[in-house]
């Protein structure tokens, strides 16, 4: 038993599959256990479509609420946004844009990684 830092990546766009919200549920689960693991939440590839400001977040609001209360932010990869013609103005307020090099740094500090 030990506290771990876990990198969660979200690689699929909502809503054709359930990964966007079940991944958040799993992240809440990881932070809520006895070990109180910490997480990073990173959106890559088509996953960045979840970070658009007008996306309906009804079914993930509960998980996002818990995570933001814990001080976590959603991090979207700049290169993935640019490749899809998404600008910073299109993003929700709780989204932070980071570079691919920053994502690699998050990979390096993580103990374990999980992809959704």
């Amino acid at each position: 038993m030990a506290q771990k830092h876990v990198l969660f990546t979200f690689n699929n766009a909502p809503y054709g599959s359930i990964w966007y919200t079940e991944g958040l549920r799993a992240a809440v689960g990881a932070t809520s256990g006895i070990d109180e693991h910490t997480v990073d939440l990173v959106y890559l590839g088509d996953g960045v479509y979840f970070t658009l400001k007008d996306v309906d977040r009804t079914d993930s609001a509960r998980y996002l609420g818990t995570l933001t209360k814990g001080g976590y932010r959603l991090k979207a990869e700049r290169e993935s946004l640019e490749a899809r013609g998404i600008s910073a103005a299109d993003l929700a307020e709780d989204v932070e844009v980071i570079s691919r090099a920053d994502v690699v740094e998050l990979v390096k500090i993580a103990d374990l990684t999980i992809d959704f």
Partner: protein
Amino acid sequence: MATLGMLLTLGPFQFENWDTAASIAEAALDKGHEVRMFLYLDGVYNPIKHQTFPDLSVMPKDRFAALVEKGATIIACGVCVNARGLEKGKDYIDGVKVGGLPDFAEIIGEADALITL
């Protein structure tokens, strides 16, 4: 000896992830490692008791039963189990537990390596 944590999120009969997961778990157990697997989302369909499919010579449930026999811990997400109308105890092969995300958090704490499929 090390502990391999596994997260399996896809079910049998449609994607090959279950086969990959079972094969990796077998190889890890054969090398004397511990395996602790959490079944999430459709992953909970893998070790259910009643499976028949003529195209497969070995049913997924039997591969998972063999893992349990070799000492693997397999825990299914209870919310996912209930969502699919499955029942703890009744629908699962012996040795597979129905638990919850706290169990997954525990696996994260214990795992030397984690793979997600």
